[in-house]
């Protein structure tokens, strides 16, 4: 008889072990989570049942009741404007600070301080920054712009400084060897070779800030179409009007996403 040998097709290693443990823990946590849900007397299946008719009211029969079409478009552009403004302000702040946070451009102690501070700024959700600023500035566009700018700057400092760290060190060294000072290196080597990366991060942040601006209108009194949605949902209880707002927001978000996709495609050509 021939001796048999077993060939292990997929040997176990640390990566597969950690992968399995992660998946199993996620499943267990999820199962446990469902037992802790606070139902507040709401019947789950009745809600699911209602979901169908609510969706058809929302998506198939949208109409405006409490505001006109022109006002809706105006408010949509207010939201877009808040998203744009906070992205520009955040980018302007981030551009300066990211240079001081990049390991190849600034002393180590400084990068650690700035990176630590921005990690803290990013860990606090945007809505809480807005509410914190609202105590001294009052609820409204000023608090919303400040809070969103804060969070955008934190996010972009991280993204920008990582883009700076990724650039080819040879260009830097060539400039340094030819006697260029720090500012000349920044403007002639660093910013020019990372420009496309900076632009894509900024555009991504604009997409995020647009949806955050909707949320701030709903949760922090920042106005715009988010506030209209909040009123339609919590005050007028009008799903049809909610549907009209949803379409308006969706239309702009899809335009943004298509723009980002085309930009990405043009870069990889």
């Amino acid at each position, binding site marked *: 008889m021939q001796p048999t040998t077993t060939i292990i097709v997929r040997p176990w290693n*640390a*990566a597969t072990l*950690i*992968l399995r443990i*992660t*998946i199993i823990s*996620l499943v267990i*946590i*999820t199962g*446990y*989570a*469902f037992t802790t*849900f*606070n139902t*507040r*007397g*709401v019947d789950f299946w009745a*809600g*699911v049942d*209602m*979901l169908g008719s609510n969706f058809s009211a929302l998506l198939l029969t949208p109409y405006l009741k409490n505001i006109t079409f022109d006002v809706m478009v105006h408010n949509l552009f207010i939201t877009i*404007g*808040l998203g*744009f*403004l906070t992205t*520009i302000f955040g980018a302007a702040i981030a551009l300066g600070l990211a240079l001081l946070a990049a390991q190849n451009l600034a002393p180590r102690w400084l990068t650690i301080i700035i990176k630590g501070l921005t990690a*803290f700024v990013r*860990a*606090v*959700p*945007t809505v*809480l920054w807005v*509410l*914190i*600023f609202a*105590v*001294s*500035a009052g609820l409204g*566009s*000023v*608090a919303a*712009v*400040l809070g969103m700018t804060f969070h955008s700057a934190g996010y972009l400092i991280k993204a920008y400084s990582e883009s700076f760290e990724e650039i080819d060190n040879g260009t830097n060294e060539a400039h340094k060897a030819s006697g260029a000072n720090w500012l000349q290196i920044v403007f002639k080597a660093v910013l020019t070779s990372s420009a496309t990366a900076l632009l894509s991060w900024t555009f991504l942040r604009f997409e995020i800030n647009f*949806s955050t601006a909707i*949320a701030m209108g*709903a*949760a922090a009194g920042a106005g715009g179409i*988010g506030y209209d*949605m*909040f009123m*339609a*949902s*919590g005050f007028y209880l009008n*799903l049809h009007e*909610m549907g009209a*707002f*949803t379409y308006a*927001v969706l239309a702009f*978000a899809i335009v943004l*996403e298509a723009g980002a996709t085309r930009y990405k495609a043009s870069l990889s050509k």
Partner: protein
Amino acid sequence: MHKLDFFTQKRLSFGLFVMVLIVLTYATIIFTEYNVAKGFTSIPKAVRWATANFYPDAAAIKKLPAILAKLSDTILMSVASATVASFFAFFVAIFGAQTTRINVWFSVFARGIATVFRNIDVSAWALILLFSFGQSSFTGYFALFFVTFGFMVRVLIETIDEVSTDSVEALRATGASYFAIITQSVIPSCLPQLVSWVLFMIETNIRSATLVGILTGTGIGYSFDIYYKSLNYNAASLVIVVIVISVSAIEAVSNWIRRAVL
């Protein structure tokens, strides 16, 4: 005509770009009626207020158990919605990806649905779902579920097309069945990426859940909202400290898992 040299041309186009941005920014400031001066003066005011009032004190620490209970609600909801939505999204992505699709029209349909789901903001979903589920945990759960689902379908379609095209082709050449191709090639090769994206969505969902909680009255967002509106800023600041610690901890754990798995 005299042709401008390379550097002058570059400088001109860069200057034009900056000019357009400045004009657009100025126009937006006027349109949104944003008060620039008030914006600047509010920052030192906020800092002064925060250092004087916004720190956890002894009375706030006593509320810690209640805050931690709400935090665990929020984290559990984020994990559950990210996991279940990713599970469904993976199936839809398999039928939607170019490598493994069964039907072109289903692929178009899947991508379309995913686009709608992810482009409606999570706060808008919460406001819509309030009509069906009221102020229960289900509202927040489904709001996070829909957005995660839309996002995951998109990234998983890209992952499948990127990671498994070659091995699917190889298996197809050996005459393997569709089912065998999926279970032996697509799922094992995409699993690390899938887990990495699920972890990313859990992080995102915890931040969103705070916002959704303010709108729907659940979880850690609700505790912050209550303390904030009752002007109990010491307790509200403790909520923020707790959020920062948990978000950073979850980020650290998922970064560690990602490094080990990918």
